């Protein structure tokens, strides 16, 4: 019964298109949308274990399953998507003829993500990740802002190239072992040079789709220009599917020691690069998008140290707080998005939510961020633990910057659903942290204190006023540069594995 989690959103997506062609009433379409979003949760709460679709045996069938590594990913995505669905019903204007189609695309995104997270088989995972990605491209292109089509085009070309190289690597794995199922590959894999090359190529492709440091060039544009609920789902859930793919890859073909050390170094570089990029931004949503680059570094750190449960819990935590931040900043900044022109001075409930979410993303206990960071750093060696601590302070510095600018401005009217959605996600981070057993620790107050000091020091020294100007190059040159970076990175990964 586990594949029903994918079947229900897919069915209701088609039903919405039928209802829209027959010109049904708006309440029917909204009801179909909400049913499609909520029904997978019913299946998730009642089913566990593995199953082969269609009742075949394992070597001939497609395996799906929910285990302790999957469950945090799926739980985070379900909570985030329910809140985003409730937010997006009043957000999209129903007089516009495009709106039922964007609701159908959101349901297809949901079905694709569910299918990717329950997959136990490489090719099945690739197909559902593609369904989710195509819906994401179309949703990014739906927005009416300037530059949205260009951002969608860049995202499309780069993601498609990475997908083709991923399928190429799956082909090499099939040629060497004869199976596509993750467990059967893990049993039958003999160490050979072709399998190491396939591991490197697949890893580099998933790295581009997840938006980690050298290959993040498409991420700030696409995630900041999209409409607000779509940005929340993109940063919260769509970049987690490639992270789950990396977990599948490393559990099937365990990498060697040198490769793992190089990946951990790359993850730490991503954490600090994201923080540095976020400190120099003047646009609120681009700041949050650079933070996604930074937080995916933490997930990669957990994966590379073979601590898959830690990476899964951190991914769930990031879905909750990044989704909440995008929804609240997006609804506060409806007229303009530049920092300093809007804020929460006259909306105390939103201020409370944003402060709670900032503490959660910084890793202050008892929020869920600190629980997840604790699991990740318990799997690391001595020197890498300092990186996690330094990253905590850095994240708090840049969120001090966000709250500082937000506390100085005012905002327009807010619909009650917008205040409620941000508050629900903020409370979810707190309750999840308490449920999983994190206690308040006094030492975390020292992090906040250090972060505030560092922020004011940077502000007085004038570093933060420097303009990072992005010229509007045409989209062809952007794609050329990003593909060249990708190819160079992949050659580097292949050369590391040479001996």
């Amino acid at each position, binding site marked *: 019964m586990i594949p029903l989690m994918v079947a229900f959103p897919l069915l209701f997506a088609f039903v919405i298109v039928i209802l829209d062609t027959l010109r049904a009433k708006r309440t029917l379409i909204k009801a179909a949308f909400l049913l499609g979003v909520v029904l997978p949760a019913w299946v998730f709460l009642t089913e566990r274990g593995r199953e082969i679709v269609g009742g075949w045996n394992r070597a001939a069938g497609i395996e799906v399953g929910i285990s302790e590594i999957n469950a945090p990913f799926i739980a985070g995505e379900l909570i985030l998507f329910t809140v985003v669905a409730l937010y997006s019903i009043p957000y999209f204007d129903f007089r516009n003829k495009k709106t039922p189609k964007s609701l159908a695309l959101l349901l297809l995104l949901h079905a694709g993500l569910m299918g990717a997270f329950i997959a136990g088989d490489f*090719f099945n995972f690739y197909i559902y990740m593609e369904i989710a990605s195509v819906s994401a491209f179309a949703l990014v292109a739906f927005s009416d802002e300037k530059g949205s089509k260009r951002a969608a085009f860049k995202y499309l*070309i780069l993601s498609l190239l990475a997908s*083709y190289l991923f399928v190429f690597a799956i*082909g090499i794995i*099939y040629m060497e072992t004869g199976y596509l199922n993750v467990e059967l590959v893990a049993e039958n894999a003999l160490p050979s040079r072709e399998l190491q090359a396939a591991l490197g190529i697949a890893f580099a492709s998933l790295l581009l789709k997840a938006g980690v440091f050298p290959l993040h060039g498409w991420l700030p544009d696409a995630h900041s220009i999209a409409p607000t609920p779509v940005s929340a789902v993109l940063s919260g859930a769509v970049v987690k599917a490639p992270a789950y793919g990396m977990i599948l890859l490393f559990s099937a073909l365990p990498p060697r020691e040198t490769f793992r050390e190089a990946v951990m170094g790359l993850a730490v570089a991503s954490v600090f690069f994201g923080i540095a990029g976020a400190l120099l931004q003047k646009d609120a949503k681009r700041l949050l998008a650079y933070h996604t680059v930074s937080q995916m570094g933490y997930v990669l750190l957990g994966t590379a140290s073979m601590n898959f449960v830690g990476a899964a819990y951190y991914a769930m935590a990031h879905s909750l707080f990044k989704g909440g931040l995008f929804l609240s900043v997006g609804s506060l900044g409806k007229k303009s998005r530049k920092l300093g022109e809007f804020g929460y001075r006259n909306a105390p409930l939103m201020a409370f939510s944003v402060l709670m979410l900032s503490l959660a993303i910084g890793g202050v206990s008892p929020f869920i961020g600190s629980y997840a960071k604790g699991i990740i750093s318990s799997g690391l060696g001595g020197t890498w633990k300092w990186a996690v601590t330094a990253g905590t302070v850095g994240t708090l510095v840049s969120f001090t910057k966000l709250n500082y600018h937000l506390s100085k401005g005012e905002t327009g009217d807010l619909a009650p659903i917008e205040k409620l959605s941000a508050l629900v996600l903020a409370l979810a981070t707190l309750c999840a942290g308490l449920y999983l057993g994190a206690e308040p620790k006094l030492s975390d107050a020292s992090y906040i204190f250090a972060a505030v000091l560092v922020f004011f020091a940077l502000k007085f020294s004038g570093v933060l006023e420097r303009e990072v100007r992005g010229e509007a190059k*045409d989209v*062809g*040159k952007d794609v050329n540069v990003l*593909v060249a970076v990708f190819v160079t990175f992949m050659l580097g990964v292949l050369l590391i594995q040479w001996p």
Partner: protein
Amino acid sequence: MISPQQAGVLIMLIGIYGLMAKREPIKLVLSINVVSLGLVLFFIGLAYSPEKDVPIMPTDPVDPLPATLMLTTLVVDVAITSLALAIILRMRRDGS
């Protein structure tokens, strides 16, 4: 002679060169399609060997799985190409 796998990898490299060197969006979409053609050729080469039988009521069949995988990949490629062409039309109309 070159085997189909080597020819497939060569065509993929030609497509990746096209992505790095051309500037107009339609040429980029065409280069992605060339990469996909090379990938399909690589997979077909994996399964084929000249002395085996057709995989229907088989005695010693050719492996049918890579051909099925490639059907699915081609479907994905066609869908994304049509989306990319629609985005290009919209980009031109909005004036850039």
